[in-house]
């Protein structure tokens, strides 16, 4: 079963980056994986590939606490970029924060599909990806 999606992870934690990359690889969850250490780098990539359908991610896994541009700042930038994007992108917030303020904040942003507290195990990641695939199939 060939995986149709490009997954994008935005997180400054190198160990997390390692574990995610490994999970995706092991379970063959993606056609392609993008990893950025902070929001600014990710926005830079999206801006560069605005019309490039093949390079834009289908799902973004976004951390909150990052240097330079944190998750919230990224969402602001993303929302202003969204009308010009050539693709429907699903965003999951993946964070170690159990702060109810952060949770409520995420709930108020409609572009964020879900708020998931770390750690995220490979199976859970697969379920999330497959859920998006099912939805996309329904739409198609």
């Amino acid at each position, binding site marked *: 079963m060939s995986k149709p999606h490009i997954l994008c992870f935005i997180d400054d934690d*190198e160990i997390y980056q390692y574990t995610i990359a*490994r999970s995706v690889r092991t379970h063959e969850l993606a056609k392609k994986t993008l990893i950025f250490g902070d929001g600014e780098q990710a926005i830079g990539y999206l801006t560069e590939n605005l019309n490039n359908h093949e390079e834009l991610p289908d799902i973004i896994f976004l951390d909150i606490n990052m*240097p*330079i541009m944190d998750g919230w700042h990224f969402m602001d930038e993303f929302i202003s970029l969204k009308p010009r994007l050539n693709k429907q992108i699903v965003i999951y917030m993946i964070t170690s924060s*159990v702060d109810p303020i952060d949770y409520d904040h995420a709930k108020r942003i409609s572009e964020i599909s879900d708020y998931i507290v770390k750690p995220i195990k490979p199976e859970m990641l697969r379920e999330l990806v497959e859920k998006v695939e099912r939805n996309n199939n329904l739409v198609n």
Partner: protein
Amino acid sequence: MPLTAKLNFSSRSLALFNLIGGGIITIGFIVIVGWLFHFKNLCGLLPNAAPMKFNTALCFLLLGAAFILLFYCDKYLPRRVCKALSYIVIGIAVLSLSQDAFGWSAGIDQLFVTDPWSYPFLLPGRMTPMVDFCFIAVGLSFLGIHSSHIAFRNMAQYLLHTVTIISLVVLMEYIFSASPQSSRFSMLTMMAVSTTLCFLLLSSAASAINYNLGFISIFTGSEIGNIVARKLFPRMVVILIVLGYVSVELERKNYISAEFGVILSTLSFLLISLFLIRDTLTDMNRLDLERSKAEEETKALNRNLEDMVMRRTLDLKQSNDRFIKILNSSPAGISLSSLDKGIYVDVNPSLLEILGYQRDEVIGHTSAELNIVTAETRKSMLSELHNKGYVRNADIVLKNKDGRELLCKFSAEFIDYNSQQFMISFLYDITDLKQVERNLQDAKKDLEILTDKLTYQNKRLLEFAQITSHNLRSPVSNLNLLIHFYKESETAEDKHDLWTNFETVVQHLNVTLDELLETLKIQEDTTKQREELAFNDVLSRVKDMLVGQIKESNAIFVTDFSKAPTIRYPKSYLESILLNLVSNAIKYRSPDRQPQIKIVADNVDGQLSLSVEDNGLGIDMIRHKQSLFGLRKTFHRHAEARGLGLFITKTQIEAMGGEISAESEVDKGTTFKVIFNKHF
């Protein structure tokens, strides 16, 4: 002329006087008419009576008018006219008399009319000398009646009495029908009966003007003697006249001899006098009884009054006793002092106790003399008293005898005593109360500080919980995942690879724990030893520590510690704070500018502050305001950014009761401001 007081007759008396004056004028007028139309009866007023001379009638007309005007002499014109009329009458009479005296004719006798009815031995139209005299006397008395000299007034009064007596004598002659021709005496006094009546009326009425002078005063007083006089005299006059008449008539008709007539009339007079005296006596006794009754009543009233006064005095004394008791037992210090100089007139024991003086040291002295109150305080209290009429619970500072300052509540009011104004003042010593209040306030302040401290210790604990959550959760979750992979790993190479990652996470965890421990240490050690530190010294040590970076960045320092050169603070903290802020300023310098770091110390109302301003990259404050001082927050992609420095700095400052804040603009620079003693 001081007349007004003399002319205060009742309106009834005044009407009577006017009536008399008017009557005289009328008589004069009628007689003049009689002369002009030759009615003899009209001239004599009575049938067959001797006629009044024309000139006499004229004089009466003028005198009648003058008499009325006597009562209006307080005004200028009536006074002048009255005098003028009197002078004219005197002039006519003098002229007429001089004719008799020197035997010449001035041509005034028949100036207006001819006199066909004159007695043969008299010149026609001429007034008799007695009439002349009477006119002169009445005229002169009118001139002197209002004089300010008592002598003139007395003279006027006796002149009038003389005229009254003359006219009475003439009247007797008429009544006893003595023939006018029968004696020399009669010739001198010869007057027409109407003239006589007019003189009698005029002279007696005019003598009533100065009723307290001459014989008239006998009848006008209100003493018992005056009453007797008023009662007896008219009756005696009437009796004498009647008796005289009867005896003269009897003698003339030859019923009795002259001697017997005298005996008869004398006896009758004695008898009637006895009745009169008895009658008067009864009246007098009745009056005396009434008077003594009135006296008794007055005495009773007096006694009553005395009783009342005594009762009042007793009441007053009781209330005075009560007042003194209140004064002596009142806890308030009460004093009575003169308003002008502030001399103590009376003070109560409480005041003496408050001020520490003996009574005789205070009475008769002023508060300024004893240095109890300053001149300004007294002045301001007095002006408040004058403005509002009272002072209530004003706070003032007094000095007692030992010179110790006392805080007092002061109230005062005016009080009238012996028609002099005094100030009564009430004093409460609230020095101890104030001390308790201050202690309470201090305690409250301490509590507030404690609450503050607890509040933000609480806040820091919450922050710490967040930090633990954020900074410990992620390595732990990473470890979880790594363990998961390790279990599933099949190759040795893979296991080794995972192991390296384990090491990284553990290291990471170690660092985080170290940092947390460091902050915990700072938070626990709030009683860190403070010492006097010069900002300049601390900065130069910091510069020594950063010598490499400063050289490399070519940073310029601008400092101003003039407003607050030193501070009492833990040395290691101040070094650490300054080191962090300065190294941040160098670290996040702009590549386009030479870094300039401005450090200024300030002291605003005892709040010591230090600001560190740079011209570096700046921070997006809108976005990062919340997380600026958080742990592991970095805002620049920079090799050395660990996100630790500001968190430690903030922790140290807050542990010492301070506050740190930042202002920044991207690509302009950042200013950190530390207030060292914001909370305690």
